[in-house]
Structures are given as C-alpha cells and as structure tokens.
C-alpha cells in the first residue's frame, strides 16, 4: 500500500515534509489506520503520534486521513483510503509539535473558557443533587464527548479564529452545562457567549457533525445556545 506521511522534527527540520512510503499489508483483513501507523513505526521508530486505548475511547489518536479528521484506531484503512493511497497528516489548524502530534493548548483553552464544570450556588444537600430521569435525558448526546478535537480542527471558523471562536467541541460542552437542570449559572454562561465570535462565528456547515467519531451533533447544540441567547435577549 502507498502511504503519504507528514513528517516534521523541530530539532532538525526547517519546515515539514511529506514522505512517500510503501507498506505490505497482511492479506484478507482490513486493518485500522492505527495498525498501519504501528507497522510504520516498527520500521522507523522516529515516527511520532499519540495513541493510548486503541478502541476509540480515549481520543488521543485524532489525525487527518485523506483530508478527513478521525480517530486512527477506529477508522478502517478501506474507509480512509478507498482508492488505495493513504495520506496521513496531523489535525489541521493547530501548531505541529512533531509529525502527527499537534499542540492542543488552544483547543483546551477554548474548552476551559466555557467553564466545563457544574456551577450551583445553593447549599449542597446531604447526599447528592438529584435530577429527574427527564432532565438527565437532556444530557444525552452532549456528555459523551471525548475531546479528541476532530470536530474543532475540521471547522474553518476555528481555523480562522482559534483564539476567538470557541469551536464545536467547547460549544457542545457549553450547552451540556446550559442544559443541566442542576446548574444555576445559566445567565452568566450565556453572557460570556454573546459576543460576535464565541458562538456566532458558527456558519452551520456541519463539518463537525461529519467527522465526530462519537456521532455527536455540535451544530444542533450551537443552535440551541443561540435560541437560549435569543429568548434571554428579548
């Protein structure tokens, strides 16, 4: 199989290069892209990428495969490269630390901005803050995010304004806490998102929904945030 691999070593390289590699894949079974990376690394230990759980739970191995973001461990080679040539590059829009490893600081900073924790200023009950099954239901499709950054780095609005636009991952979590019946900071959370960039830079192109390995829908959450802002503003 033909593989095109993005390489960059900050200690020796002025700028990134693309290596064309040839790899013999075992016959008769479809590997995951992460398996291909492991085979490549066995031949050249200097190749750098992040990985941990190898089953789509930890969110470490988000990379760009043939122009599309996804988790290497759960993306079959046949799906990533239907025409036979596999192109592996780091997630777009973030500074490259080395090879397929990107600096996620900007992504985490946006996540931090939306205060991803429960805020409740009432006195805590003796045991726990209860929630009705209906209210708990509202968090489905929101809490499952693994912060792999596939969505935000597939989003042009995030490429152009990574410091100002919160991005789909952060906004999905923003809505996760706005929708939580136990959270009492709704007004403050909304006020922090009301500017022209944080949430309103979303143009609804749904690149985030297209690539999310968990099948989540940040665009829908963003629409809900806008509706909340609107009803609060009127």
């Amino acid at each position, binding site marked *: 199989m033909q593989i095109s691999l993005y390489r*960059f070593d900050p200690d020796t390289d002025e700028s990134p290069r693309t290596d064309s590699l040839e790899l013999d894949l075992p016959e008769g079974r479809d590997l995951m892209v992460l398996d291909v990376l492991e085979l490549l690394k066995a031949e050249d230990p200097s190749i750098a990428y992040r990985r941990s759980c190898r089953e789509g739970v930890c969110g470490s191995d988000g990379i760009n495969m043939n122009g599309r973001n996804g988790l290497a461990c759960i993306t079959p080679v046949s799906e990533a490269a239907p025409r036979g040539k596999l192109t592996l590059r780091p997630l*777009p*829009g973030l500074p490259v*630390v080395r090879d397929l490893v990107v600096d996620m*600081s900007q992504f985490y900073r946006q996540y931090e901005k939306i205060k991803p924790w429960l805020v409740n200023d009432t006195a805590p009950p003796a045991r726990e803050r209860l929630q009705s099954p209906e209210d708990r239901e509202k968090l489905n499709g929101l809490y499952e995010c693994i912060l792999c950054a596939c969505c935000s780095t597939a989003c042009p609005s995030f*490429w152009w304004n990574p410091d100002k636009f919160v991005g789909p991952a952060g906004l999905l979590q923003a809505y996760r806490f706005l929708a939580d019946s136990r959270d009492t900071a709704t007004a403050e959370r909304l006020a922090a998102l009301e500017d022209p960039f944080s949430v309103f830079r979303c143009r609804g192109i*749904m690149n985030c929904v*297209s690539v999310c390995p968990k099948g989540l829908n940040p665009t829908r959450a963003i629409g809900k945030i806008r*509706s909340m802002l609107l009803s609060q503003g009127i």
Partner: protein
Amino acid sequence: MHPDRPVNLPLPRLAAAMPVTAIASFLHRVTGIVLFAGTLFLCYVLDLALADEAGFERAAAIIEAPPGALATWAILTSLAYHVVAGVKHLLLDFHVGDSLRAAKIGAWLTIALAVLAAVGLAVWLW
C-alpha cells in the same frame, strides 16, 4: 504553546474532502461577495434607466450587450442562490434540518435550485 511551529492547513486538499454542507455554505459566502460587488452595477443601471427615455434605452442596451448580460446573469444567479441558502439558514435557526442527513439534503437542494435558476435566467436573457 508553539507559535512558530508549522500548521497543517492545505486548503485545496481539505476542501476536496469536505462534505456538501460545507461547499453549500462556501457558495453562500461567494454569492454574497458577488452581490456586494454587483450592487454597484445595479445602482448604475437603475440610475440610468430612471433618468430619462434616452437613459432607459442606454441601460437596456448595456444589459443586452454580452458583458452586461453576463453581469446580470451572475448577479441574479447569485441572488437566487443567496436567497435559497438564506432560507435554509433561517430554517436551521429554528432547528429545522439540523441533523447531518437533513443538512446534506438541504445543501443538495439549494445547489440544484440555483442551477435551475441559472439555466432559467440564461434562457431568459439570451
């Protein structure tokens, strides 16, 4: 932070892998820019046509000549696309069509309607 590090952002490569929903949104933007520039032409033609009979004849001649006809066609096609895409956007604001499947259908529908308008306008103008 690594501000001096390279950033992987090969736009043509990424654009080629983008879903139709992204293409439709980009066309919404492109047609908006065409309309913004084209409004200058529209102002000029309106000014001419409303001045007097001679001006109206000149305005009509400009629109019928190939460059003017092409500009008119581009502006009206862009208008058709921009309006349809705008309606799609308004529906999305009301949470209509916010699943990926519905958005893809909406994007194809927008493009199809605009192509229909483009062909219809071409027939009407020539």
